[in-house]
């Protein structure tokens, strides 16, 4: 039995979350039981001007309904065309791909560090933890964006009963500044507790979160983004340098890496 297959998948629900942010719910996905938070799907967008597949982190899965969800922001040609697709349109999907997050111990305090469109894999991670019986009160959900318009799916986060800490650079929603400031305060206030960090977001934020983890000796994982022609480790187009030397492929050695593992 092969672990990875490609198949056609239909859009069953499309939502315009806010401005350029969209959610697509897709089905049927035969490998749904294999999906884990941190993994991604590689979508072929049927358009003459798009050659490569595009990688999207899983934002949620529903095994009973056989659906997967992706959330994206219109950024370039691929996402612009994808945003024009409607219910009942189909795409070809390859996946699930990549290394998933390692779940924390149930006793640990969990610091989620989401930045901008780095939210989706962390939404899935937290939803899965809540489903598995983790106490949502031990989950501190830091979520940063440039302005209020970049903080999407607020009700969905609140419904999970986690401690929600929105942060915007212009102060238009939540605390003003960057998420690493309140995160560092949280770390200092809870020095006695064992903690884990999970993060996905823009490169600058990941770098700061990575340094925070190293500074206070807190383990954790970060999910990287990279243009991926193949998504399955064939082309070597998406490599990142490792601290121990050599390269890792973001698509199949990642996209999830331990804090301190890659050179950012």
């Amino acid at each position, binding site marked *: 039995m092969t672990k990875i*297959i490609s198949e056609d998948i239909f859009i069953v629900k499309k939502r315009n979350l806010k401005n350029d942010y969209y959610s697509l719910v897709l089905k049927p996905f035969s490998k749904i039981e294999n999906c884990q938070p941190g993994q991604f799907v590689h979508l072929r967008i049927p358009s003459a001007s*798009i050659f490569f597949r595009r990688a999207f982190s899983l934002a949620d899965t529903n095994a009973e309904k056989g659906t997967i969800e992706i959330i994206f922001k219109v950024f370039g040609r691929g996402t612009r065309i994808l945003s024009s697709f409607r219910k009942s349109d189909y795409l070809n999907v390859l996946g699930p791909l990549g290394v998933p997050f390692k779940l924390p111990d149930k006793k640990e305090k969990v610091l989620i560090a989401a930045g901008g469109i780095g939210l989706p894999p962390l939404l899935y991670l937290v939803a899965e933890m809540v489903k598995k019986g983790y106490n949502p009160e031990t989950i501190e959900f830091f979520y940063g964006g440039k302005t209020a318009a970049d903080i999407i799916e607020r009700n969905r986060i609140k419904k999970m009963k986690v401690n929600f800490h929105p942060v915007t650079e212009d102060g238009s929603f939540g605390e003003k500044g960057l998420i690493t400031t309140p995160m560092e305060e949280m770390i200092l206030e809870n020095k006695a507790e064992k903690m884990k960090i999970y993060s996905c977001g823009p490169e600058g934020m990941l770098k700061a979160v990575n340094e925070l983890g190293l500074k206070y000796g807190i383990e954790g994982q970060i999910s990287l983004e990279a243009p991926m022609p*193949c998504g*399955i*480790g064939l*082309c*070597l187009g998406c*490599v990142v340098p490792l601290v121990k030397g050599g390269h890792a492929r973001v698509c199949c050695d990642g996209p999830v890496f331990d804090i301190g593992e890659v050179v950012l």
Partner: protein
Amino acid sequence: MTPDLKVVIAGVEFSNPLMTASGCCGYGEELSEIFPLSKLGGLVTKSITLHPRLGHPTPRTAETSCGMLNAIGLANVGVDKFIAEKIPFLARQKTKIIVNVAGSTIKEYVEVCARLNDCEPIDMVELNISCPNVDEGGMEFGADPKMTEKSIRAVKKVFQRPLIAKLSPNVTSIVEIAQAAEQGGADVLSLINSLVGTAIDIDTWQPRLTNNKGGLTGPAIKPIALAMVDAVYSHCKLPIIGIGGIASAADVVEFMLCGATAVEIGTALFIQPDIPVKIAKDLKTYLKDKKLTSITNLIGKVRKYK
């Protein structure tokens, strides 16, 4: 009767004419998770060099219209690690194993091929004398007929199995280079390698590749590759492996009609990794429709206008 997809190249029998192109499936492990490699006639490895190489910094790939640019920079584990760690896996696969070899001096090509000669599971070596992405050699061998002949002759002395010369399209006359390779003792020709190209980001005014240029591959280059296969077939006796933008059974038929005995599939694997399985199936259907018993009936049978 099921049509026969078997082809024979330089005395080596391939179960079908479909191979992977170098640099498009590493050393085979990842692709074997998608489909059994026995579905391939042959597997061509990523270029192997004497010493390990990390390749160029990213970005080292870029999307173009109907194709891609790459400047990976021959990232590979080096010949010693390849033999120790990759060959055992490849030896277990029920497909022909072709090792692509790159170098920056004739001495380096010879040294790598001498070591591969002692490695029994290897069926053939494909000499990459045409990589556009390294400064020190590669393409400069393949752009000069004398250097082409000299490097092939030197490798033939140390490698006793069939040798494929992989030709560059970035030359004035590919026929001249093909004839030089034949003169040097090559057993097979494979063509074409990628075409030199680039793309610029109009916001940053920087090239989309840190190497500033790269190799163009994918469907965009197929018509050029076909014309070159046709030209070489008319002027050389050696069997040809066609390469360039192959993504369907129809593409394979075109290359074979122009004179290719087999083909290598490259960039298409990045978009649809199980494409060789579909192509093999579609080829059988095509042959059945055309009432042909063997795929070899296609080779060089293009009906040209007078």
